[in-house]
């Protein structure tokens, strides 16, 4: 079972977890991203996320499906925000339930690692004196 959401903030950690918790599982692993208060020692004011929405949703669904097949986990939820986030707010939550906890850890880490590589979402860091599209340049 797959639950993909791409929404305005705030994300609900509880909602993401509830969509995967099941008595068939022995363990559930959750990854919660947070907006860090600095990048390379420069204070960050806020982050702005944008997405190619239709493609982002389809790529997130692919990742969840791959995780289920690759790691034999039960349920995967991937929730991501678009819009403006302040420091400490949550851009992404990934929850995975599995019969065996090792698979849940591996699948959850696979999902966030792959999301960062393939899902068409962009993040602009806004500093006091300017702004930068994260990862745009080598």
């Amino acid at each position, binding site marked *: 079972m797959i639950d993909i959401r791409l929404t305005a903030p705030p994300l609900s950690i509880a909602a993401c977890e509830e969509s995967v918790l099941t008595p068939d599982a022995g363990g559930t692993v959750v990854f919660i*991203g947070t907006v860090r208060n600095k990048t390379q020692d420069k204070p960050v004011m806020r982050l702005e*996320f*944008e*997405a*190619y929405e*239709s*493609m*982002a949703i*389809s790529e997130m669904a692919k990742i969840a499906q791959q995780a289920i097949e690759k790691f034999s986990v039960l349920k995967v939820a991937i929730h*991501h925000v678009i819009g403006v986030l302040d420091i400490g707010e949550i*851009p*992404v939550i990934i929850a995975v339930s599995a019969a065996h906890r090792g698979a849940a850890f591996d699948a959850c880490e696979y999902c*966030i690692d792959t*999301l*960062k*590589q*393939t*899902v*068409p*979402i*962009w*993040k*602009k860091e806004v500093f006091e004196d300017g702004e930068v*599209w*994260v*990862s*745009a*340049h*080598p």
Partner: protein
Amino acid sequence: MTINILTFGIARDIIGSSTFDMSLPEGASVADLKQHLLEQYPRFISLASLMIAVNAEYGVETTILTEKDEIALIPPVAGG
């Protein structure tokens, strides 16, 4: 043919608009599109990567484009 192209993130900043049109010969591929793009907008050379999405899927260099496709520039992603 004239294709309409969606832009996001730093690609939108470089193009200056969230969509734009580009004239390409019939039967042009993703590789042709990228070549035209780099010629017209040399700032794309400085990006860490540039992918082209065709109908909301990553295209490869040989993917053939038509006027009916939804085409998008995908600069380096940074979700999470």
